[in-house]
């Protein structure tokens, strides 16, 4: 890291921690924000970056990304994920433990922490397995894994169906103030389903997944949180009833938070259209009414965070009949652009959106970022919220190209990304 200070000037500063929005600059020195606001003046020795009126905000913190390393480097490596993240304005990525080997051993967590530090240009924080081997039967070594650097505990794309195991995990995790993140989907109710259950699935002749696959599991978890007091985060909710469950839990003061994927905010089941496998996701894209409910829940704070649910799949697992294709889409690079659609549609303010993309994840994970204030880490992004472009998957940095936004018209592009005081991405057009 260079010791030379960097000054961002002529910026539209948005601090999602305080909802402050003003014109001004930010001075960065030694990896942290040294000064911020309208009065920040040029330091003699500073390198100057003129933001030309663009937005300057804390870097995004993505709580859910699947990375193929170790075990599947052809899908994504820590290095390629870092490059994709930086281009999308994501400065911290929480990686899921669904790797090979599974991240259920302190030595493997330690490996990921070191490897990410050596190869990735953004922060990558591993979430460790909640149960050994992601098998949902025995809880993993939560204390030792946390000591090794695990930031949260989750079985990734799998759900813990055994309520006793979940109860004990929530109870045990409480002693370590460990966060449990859960994919809420009852596999028995999912059955052979591949898309949202309803009229459209019937027309396509595809087996459906009822919303109850999600709500039954979420309802159970909330009751277990009430019993145990453990800190719980539903990784992604996708339907109106789930939002109601979380709303009620929060109303009772339970330590429950939740996320939504950008896909479920921007797309609905009709986007599957003519069996487009890039739209095959878990949970499935829901009805438009559910999408609207997700946006409302985000706006009123019921939904805390937006995640990319970045899940790279290679061509062979996606170029298959819809029912046989793998779930998942890449999302790190399009997270902000796709989310800005909500701002352009007037559904949510830009500070509120950035809060769900940076400050709230930081609060839930116990990270110092997500704020524009003196002493905060200099994880920053500069972006033009109005810059239009058409996504060409060939330009994606991710090793996999399965984006549901391929060829979509998007508005808003990141021009500069800084991590720990170092510029890690600059778009050529700036």
């Amino acid at each position, binding site marked *: 890291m260079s010791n030379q200070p960097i000054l961002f000037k002529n910026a539209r500063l948005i601090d999602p921690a305080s909802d402050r929005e003003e014109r001004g600059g930010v001075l960065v020195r030694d990896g942290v924000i040294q000064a911020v606001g309208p009065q920040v003046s040029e330091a003699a020795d500073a390198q100057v970056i003129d933001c030309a009126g663009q937005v300057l905000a804390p870097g995004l913190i993505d709580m859910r990304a699947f990375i193929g390393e170790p075990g599947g480097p052809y899908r994504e490596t820590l290095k390629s994920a870092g490059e994709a993240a930086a281009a999308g304005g994501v400065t911290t990525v929480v990686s899921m433990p669904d790797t090979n080997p599974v991240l259920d051993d302190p030595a493997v967590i330690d490996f990921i922490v070191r490897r990410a530090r050596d190869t990735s240009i953004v922060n990558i924080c591993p979430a460790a397995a909640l149960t*050994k081997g992601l098998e949902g039967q*025995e*809880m993993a*070594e939560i*204390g*030792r894994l946390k000591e090794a650097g695990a930031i949260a505990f989750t079985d990734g794309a799998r759900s813990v169906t055994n309520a006793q*195991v979940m109860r*004990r995990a929530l109870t045990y995790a409480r002693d370590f103030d460990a966060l449990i993140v859960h994919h809420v989907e009852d596999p028995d109710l999912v059955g052979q389903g591949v898309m949202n259950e309803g009229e459209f699935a019937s027309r396509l002749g595809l087996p459906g997944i009822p919303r109850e696959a999600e709500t039954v599991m979420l309802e159970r978890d909330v009751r277990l949180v009430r019993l145990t007091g453990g800190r719980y985060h539903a990784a992604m909710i996708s339907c109106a009833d789930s939002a109601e469950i979380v709303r009620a839990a929060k109303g009772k003061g339970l330590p429950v938070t939740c996320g939504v994927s950008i896909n479920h905010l921007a797309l609905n089941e009709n986007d599957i259209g003519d069996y487009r496998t890039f739209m095959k996701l878990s949970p499935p894209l829901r009805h438009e009414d559910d999408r609207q409910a997700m946006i409302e829940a985000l706006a009123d704070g019921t939904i805390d965070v937006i995640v990319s649910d970045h899940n790279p799949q290679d061509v062979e697992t996606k170029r298959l009949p819809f029912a046989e294709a793998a779930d998942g889409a890449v999302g790190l690079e399009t997270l902000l652009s796709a989310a800005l659609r909500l701002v352009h549609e007037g559904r949510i303010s830009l500070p509120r959106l950035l809060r769900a993309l940076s400050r709230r994840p930081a609060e839930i994970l116990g990270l110092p970022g997500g704020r524009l204030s003196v002493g905060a880490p200099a994880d920053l992004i500069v972006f033009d919220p109005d810059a239009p472009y058409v996504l060409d998957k060939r330009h994606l940095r991710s090793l996999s190209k399965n984006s549901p936004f391929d060829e979509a018209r998007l508005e808003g592009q990141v021009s500069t990304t800084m991590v720990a005081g170092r510029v890690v991405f600059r778009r050529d057009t700036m």
Partner: protein
Amino acid sequence: MSDAPRSIFPHRHLLGIEGLSPLDIQALLDLADEQVEVSRQIEKSKSSLRGRTQINLFFEASTRTQSSFEIAGKRLGADVMNMQVASSSVKKGETLIDTAVTLNAMRPDIIVVRHHAAGAVHLLAQKVDCSVVNAGDGAHEHPTQALLDALTIRRNKGRIAGLTVAICGDILHSRVARSNMILLAAMGARVRLVAPSTLLPPGIARLGFETFTSMEQGLKDADIVMMLRLQRERMNGSFVPSVKEYFRFYGLDQEKLAFAKPDALVMHPGPMNRGVEISSDVADGAQSLIREQVEMGVAVRMAVLEALASHLPNR
């Protein structure tokens, strides 16, 4: 000293610490102190239970406790019979009652019972005419263990009242912990319970005991650190993740012991899992009372048998 039993204990059975007054406990401890001296003599025999029949009825295997009761009975002159009952053959309460009725017909004077089910000893006590001693019923009580622990503490610290005792480990499944909590609190000690939340009985804090999930906090300035055995078969269940994890956060080693007072004493009811709940250097170290607890066990059981003998109906 007369060998005749003295009537210092106003109870026919010893089914638990619950129900005993501080005076009852003190009387048993005083009597046990005398038995320590008896056991340390070359001639260890007394005649206070001569002609009496003591049956040790163990539905669960326990070499230590059973041997301790056997030696205690024999030193008091009783005829001691050990009965091992395979737990697989006793699955229903009805069978337990049948066993009790059969045994009762043999006219024993004292039955010492260990059973895997909480409350089984109480049930048996209702069906027999003799005195019954609880040698451990499920996760309920193990009164003689608590008494021997109290005797060990009193002899080393000179008192129980005012001491801070940290009971650490598998509280949830421990009859030792339950009896000790009641006894120590009754005698004026400050009792702390230290365990991962999965091994703490729900609602235990509402009973007035301080609970801690961190050994460092729970052991801070403790006078006595009482470790509990963690059954290995439970390690791979869902209560705690692994032996390594358990030892790292809840096993007693020198580093964690340093949080207690410099003159803190370490206890363990045995048998120990070295490297699981306690490190060898602590178990064998200068602060350890573990071997002394075994000696006190015989003395306390002699005291209990003698105290109950004073109430036998056929005197």
